[in-house]
């Protein structure tokens, strides 16, 4: 048994990110389930609504929800039942009317067009904002994707490094109350990312969908003082791409769901598309679909140059052609370098700031990393710079690692800087999950689980004591 310190107890590992959710069994090298965290939902009112409890705007026309159920999978059915269950509770209470939501989780489920379907993620700034969505994601991952009964498996969850105590308490409550987990553990994402790269002490640079964060990890402890985060990530770049396309080519992307037929057009000509003109398409759905379409553009065209941004050099680089789903095609030159440059130089390259980022001082990723290093103890700094771990999907831009290395070396000229980042795309995206998988399959880890008995005895506050 004692080989490599591993001991499988069939733990589940789930890492809900702002764009992607990764779930799987501990001890495996890749998550079994990798699906978008954005979840579609259709809101309907169970009874005549007097006072809408949630401040969200009521979505129009829930009438054809049942029609859509036809092609929705069993998951959606389960959600429906769940939702109905909730509504029954509401009816029992009789005090107020509740909105019920029907959820559509999963890659195909959430991207299928349904009238009045909104799309939203569970997280805001890396913290759980919508617990219902969060719960639905768990349920979908465990029941529909991993096909397990969560009450039989210990659960390891990742959380943002800046997670708050009340949210953690809620998380542990959810795990024990709703999913009846026998054991539970929550670990901070940077720590898991470091473990995923095989390091216990590292400087973790996590460039995710919503957030970019850098954090020093020391012997498996995330140093909270060194944490630097900002709301700049892959999604922001995608949004910027849409903006720039509109600005430069007067082009507005038509997502795939609305395209009935298309005709080939010359480069830079407006697309010739006949649309379905679907009624009841919500703004959030449209935006999400557009972002997904532009995601491909981002992944295949955008890249970094190895040196600090230099307009002349960038202009001399070859252009890359790209065709959008609606037929619009363009050869992108300098733009493909300027767009991701937001990560390193947000103040200069973020041309149109979204509302949430107005009047916010932004930093480049390398500046954040340097700040993280500078806030940690001087004895620790060489160790950190020697173990820089890159994680998150947005760190997958070509040349990102080289650029980061150049910028960091520039900022800390006397230090030896070494990067440890997983090279394959899926691994980089799910570095934190991998760390969780490694951690939860270690024989020595099993003493750390929060057991059901402990939870019953101490309540949700035990999570702060046990998961530091």
């Amino acid at each position, binding site marked *: *048994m*004692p080989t490599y*310190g591993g*001991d*499988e*107890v*069939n733990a589940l590992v789930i890492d809900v990110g702002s764009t992607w959710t990764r779930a799987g069994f501990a001890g495996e090298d890749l998550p079994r389930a990798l699906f978008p965290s954005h979840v579609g939902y259709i809101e309907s009112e169970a009874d005549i609504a007097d006072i809408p409890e949630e401040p969200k705007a009521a979505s129009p026309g829930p009438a054809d929800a049942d029609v859509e159920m036809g092609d929705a999978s069993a998951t959606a059915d389960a959600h429906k039942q769940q939702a109905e269950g909730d509504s029954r509770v509401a009816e029992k209470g009789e005090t107020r009317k509740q909105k019920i939501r029907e959820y559509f989780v999963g890659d195909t489920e959430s991207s299928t067009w349904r009238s009045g379907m909104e799309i939203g993620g569970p997280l805001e700034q890396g913290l759980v904002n919508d617990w219902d969505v969060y719960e639905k994601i768990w349920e979908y991952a465990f029941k529909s994707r991993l096909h397990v009964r969560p009450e039989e498996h*210990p659960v390891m969850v990742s959380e943002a490094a800046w997670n708050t*105590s009340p949210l953690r308490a809620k998380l542990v409550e959810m795990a024990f109350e709703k999913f009846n987990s*026998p*054991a539970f553990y929550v670990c901070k994402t940077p720590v898991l990312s470091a473990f995923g790269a095989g390091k216990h002490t590292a400087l973790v640079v996590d460039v995710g969908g919503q957030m970019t964060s850098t954090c020093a990890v*020391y*012997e498996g*402890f995330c*140093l*909270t*003082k*060194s944490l630097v985060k900002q709301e700049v990530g892959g999604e922001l770049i995608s949004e910027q791409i849409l903006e720039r396309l509109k600005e430069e080519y007067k082009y507005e992307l038509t997502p795939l769901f609305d395209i009935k037929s298309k005709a080939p057009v010359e480069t830079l000509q407006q697309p010739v598309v006949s649309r379905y003109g679907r009624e009841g398409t919500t703004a959030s759905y449209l935006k999400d679909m557009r972002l997904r379409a532009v995601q491909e553009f981002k992944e295949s065209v955008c890249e970094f140059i190895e040196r600090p941004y230099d307009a002349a050099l960038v202009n001399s680089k070859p252009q890359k052609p790209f065709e959008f789903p609606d037929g619009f095609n363009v050869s992108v030159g300098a733009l493909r370098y300027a767009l991701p440059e937001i990560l390193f130089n947000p103040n200069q390259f973020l041309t149109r700031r979204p509302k949430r980022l107005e009047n916010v001082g932004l930093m480049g990723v390398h500046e954040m990393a340097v700040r993280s290093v500078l806030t*940690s*103890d*001087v*004895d*620790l*700094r060489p160790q950190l710079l020697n173990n820089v771990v890159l994680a998150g999907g947005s760190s997958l831009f070509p040349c990102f690692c080289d650029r980061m290395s150049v910028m960091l070396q*520039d900022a*800390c*000229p*006397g*230090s030896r800087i070494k990067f440890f980042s997983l090279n394959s795309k899926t691994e980089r995206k799910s570095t934190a999950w991998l760390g969780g998988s490694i951690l939860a399959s*270690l*024989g*020595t880890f*099993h*003493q750390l*689980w929060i*057991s*059901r*008995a*402990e939870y019953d005895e101490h309540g949700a*506050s035990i999570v*702060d*004591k046990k998961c*530091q």
Partner: protein
Amino acid sequence: MGPKTKQKVPGMSRELTSLYLENQAIPVPLDLFQAKPKFGSKAERWVWRGFKSSARGDSDSLILYHWAKASEQYSDYYYARYNARAKPCQYTDEEYSKCIEPLNNDWTRVETDYLLHLCQTLDLRFIVVHDRYYTHPDCPLASVVLDRTLEDIKDRYYAVCRALTQLRSGEDSGDPDDLPLQATNKLADDLALLRFDKSKERERKQYLEALFTRSKDEIEEEEILIAEARRIEANERRLVHEREMLLQSHALFEEAPSTTTISTVNVQFAQASEPPQALPAGDVIPKVRKGAPDAAADGTAAGGLRTPKKQKSAHGILAASVSGGMSMPKVKAASAANRAQSATPAPLASAKMLSPGPSESSVRRSASPMRAGSIGMKLEHGDEPPQFGPVSFATEEHLVSAAIAQVDTPDIGTITVAQRDTRLGPGVFLRSDKLHPIPKNKLDSVKQFMNQLSLNSPNTIWPRPVMSTAAVCDRFDTLQSTIIPLLEYKKTADKLETEVQVLRARKRMLVNSMGEAKAEQVLSELPPFDPSKVVLTRAASPTASETLTLPPTPTNRHHRKGSTASATRKKA
């Protein structure tokens, strides 16, 4: 898999044929193939078994499940043994009031308790303790002093530990002064481990901080400086090496004769403008020529002066010339016959001083003859480099006495400067180190010889005198340099002896086969013995006797006879 009829293609190997013809069966060694794997034993049973870990604490009843071999049974969870935790010191109320309270700090009891609690939960990871100090859920915020640095925390922890260790060790025996020595040592060790100097630590971190925040330019400059230093170092090494080469080339022809008599060389050279230590190795290309005429020619060319020629003795009298820049050196060598003169070399040197050097200062030195050429002498003269006029090297026969250079300067007078032996390098050395080294291939035999003379050497590698006074060293060196040629003679003698014996045996054989009477007759017909011829044949063969004038020993005589005999036999 029925075997196919083999089509044999003539003139083609089987392998090639099988590649060429697709349907040909590829030969597979059949004996490696097993139709059915054989398993020695039944497969082990694995069971899905629940386990409890003692590392989780006794109160907890969490049962996790894993696959385990049915045969294996553990009393405790296997990995529970790795549950090692740091044990930070703990104190009782009494101990606190007794030894920690008087520590006179701004730390309250509550905060100290909290600190130790953190140290325990975080396994003494001070960096994490410092990081979580104000955010930990157990933090008694009201009674915690703000802005504790990492050093403050460490300092307090170690102060508490020190105080407790001291107190407890005192308690054991009642009085700390009564402790047995061993215990005192242990206590001192323990305290040393717990020592923490906050100001030192701060200072260290400041230095580190400064090192970390160096700018790019500073680092570049530093790198350039380091590279420069390396270059200088390398140059210096090369300089020393070249100088050594130069000196070796001088010493070469002085060392050549290893005879018992020691030549005394009187070297004079004049340096017109530069002090000798400023001689750059690259600029001065030493010209060392054997024989006086060249040196004389140089001298003539430079100053129209002639060096008096001296004929060589058996050891060779050398005249070396060092020319370079404006220097106009003349090297005069004196034969062994001049030894008496060289003991007081000054008059001789000045009498023969032919250099037109403007300075009056002269350097006189006595040095060993082997190293008479140590021109690269290091003469330090403070700020004002003295002008060197002609420098005369007077070499005494006294081999190993401290070489001293006397420099006459106009204002200060005569300065005595110890003349360093270049072979020995800088620094202190033993007089016995100045002994001439024995060639490695002769080392063993010399040692053996010395053993036979019951001379015991304190040094096992090189024979060295026990008491190396100047006189002893001198005698020792003389002995050494006598032994070496003696051994040479012996070797040659032995060789010749065997040769003679072989030839004699051959002669006997030939005589026997020929019949004694006939042999007599042949011998009598031989031409009479001609020694000159023999010498000629001998000279052609490269032996040690070539360089040595062999005294007419009996062996030699034998040998001559032998060689003639062999020559005659061959003719016959």
